[in-house]
């Protein structure tokens, strides 16, 4: 008896699941049709050979570009560093407001902080860069602002979560000794969250190198501008060279963060 019921139920749930899979497959097929098949100019693309040839144009390095890459590379790196720093500074109040256990006025400051974090994370760094370029002008400064504002979301969110997870014991101890809020922060809260927060900052700094490299595409300084110019002059080898420079920078950043992590954490 019971095994019949089980088999029946299994068959029903299997049918339901099959229907769902079918619906999803149809949805995907329709999407592929609409986006890729209809939208693409197949004639202009030509055959596979044409496409491969198009890709092949990029393969090669433009050595003459090397000396012109030094300054933008340094600029990109600096934008990432200063942007991350500015982001961390903004995160201090953001994480304070966004941690449920220490936020000063829960009905207002907590949702405010959470909203700030969401907006920061939801808007792509290119959009932030466009905004700041329009407001501040071209150059490195809008890039720094864009990186800073983009990083706040992640760093503040992780820090707030770390703060919410602390052991309340040391907080009790410092209060019992007669400590004020600042002393509780420095002695009881900060030591507990420091390794985690530092890890998050280093992680985000690495990602910011990647972001800084392309902000120049919209005028916010760094290698992105060189990339843009090389594309516009159809210097495909130059484009590849810039990409390699970006990859090299990211590699350096990764090596550095690996080393720092081992030292600190």
């Amino acid at each position, binding site marked *: 008896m019971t095994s019949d019921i089980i088999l029946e139920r299994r068959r029903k749930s299997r049918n339901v699941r099959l229907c769902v899979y079918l619906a999803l497959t149809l949805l995907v097929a329709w999407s592929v049709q609409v986006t890729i098949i209809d939208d693409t100019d197949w004639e202009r693309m030509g055959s596979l050979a044409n496409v491969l040839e198009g890709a092949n144009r990029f393969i090669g390095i433009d050595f003459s570009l090397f000396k012109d890459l030094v300054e933008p590379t340094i600029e990109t790196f600096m934008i990432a560093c200063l942007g991350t720093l500015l982001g961390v500074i903004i995160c201090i109040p953001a994480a304070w407001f966004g941690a449920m256990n220490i936020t000063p006025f829960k009905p207002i400051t907590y949702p405010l902080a959470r909203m700030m974090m969401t907006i920061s994370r939801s808007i792509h760094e290119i959009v932030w860069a466009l905004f700041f370029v329009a407001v501040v002008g071209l150059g490195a400064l809008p890039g720094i602002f864009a990186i800073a504002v983009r990083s706040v979301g992640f760093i503040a969110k992780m820090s707030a979560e770390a703060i919410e997870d602390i052991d309340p*014991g*040391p907080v*009790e*101890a*410092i*209060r*019992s*000794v*007669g*400590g*004020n809020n*600042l*002393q509780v922060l*420095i*002695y*009881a809260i900060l*030591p*507990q969250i*420091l390794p985690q927060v530092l890890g998050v900052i280093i992680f985000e700094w690495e990602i910011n190198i990647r972001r800084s490299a392309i902000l120049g595409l919209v005028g916010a300084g760094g290698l992105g501008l060189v990339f843009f110019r090389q594309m516009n002059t159809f210097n495909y080898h130059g484009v590849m060279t810039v990409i390699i420079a970006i990859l090299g920078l990211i590699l350096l950043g990764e090596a550095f963060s690996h080393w720092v992590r081992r030292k600190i954490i």
Partner: protein
Amino acid sequence: MEILNVTGLHASYSSSGPEILKGIDFAVEDDDFFAIIGPSGAGKSTLIRCINRLVEPSKGTILFDGREVTRLPRRELRRLRRDIGVIFQEFNLIDRMSVMDNVLSGRLGYIGNFRTLFRAFPRSDIDQGLRLLDRVGLIDHVDKRADELSGGQRQRVGIARALMQNPKMLLLDEPTSALDPKISREIMGLVKQMATELNVPCLCNIHDVQLATEFCNKIIGLQDGYMMFNGPTEEMDEAKLNEIYAMEVL
């Protein structure tokens, strides 16, 4: 002379929650080593925490050193807390900081924000810290991180930290529950010794009745938020113990 006088103390953890303490009256003299005993959930921890207002009492008065604790504004409360040293069950040390910094943190109530940022304690504090660490037997561990110590060692750091405050009274919240029996006895002995040496009365929440009768001169017994016994240790007998722990037997 009385150092602490508690009358009609009621407390609950939240305004809508159940009442944990239902009317407690007792007094601590300045040469007492006072024990609070009772089954789990009787309110012992809450009572200890009411004294320095880590938990807010809902009703009643607490007179400490002539000050009405329940009515103190924030700044006065901080000054009051400086005069009361607390030793915790879970030690509550700052794990990533050194033993010395943990002990020095006992003086935080006496230094301003600027000194706090740079951990610049005055020389006299540093000297006192070293003397206390020597007295509790940890002078060789001064620069070790607190989480590198054993349980008994950590509680000694807790004792040193509490005594750094030059407190007028010590509160102990189940100081030995997280330690094994032999170490527990050592720690209780150390506290009693130093408290007697330095003229500091103690109010101690203990789970182990034997330790209580061994080290303390007066006892109050709590059960379900009520006070079932209040008197010198000699008057505590089997019958009264059973009364206090009646719920546990059931």
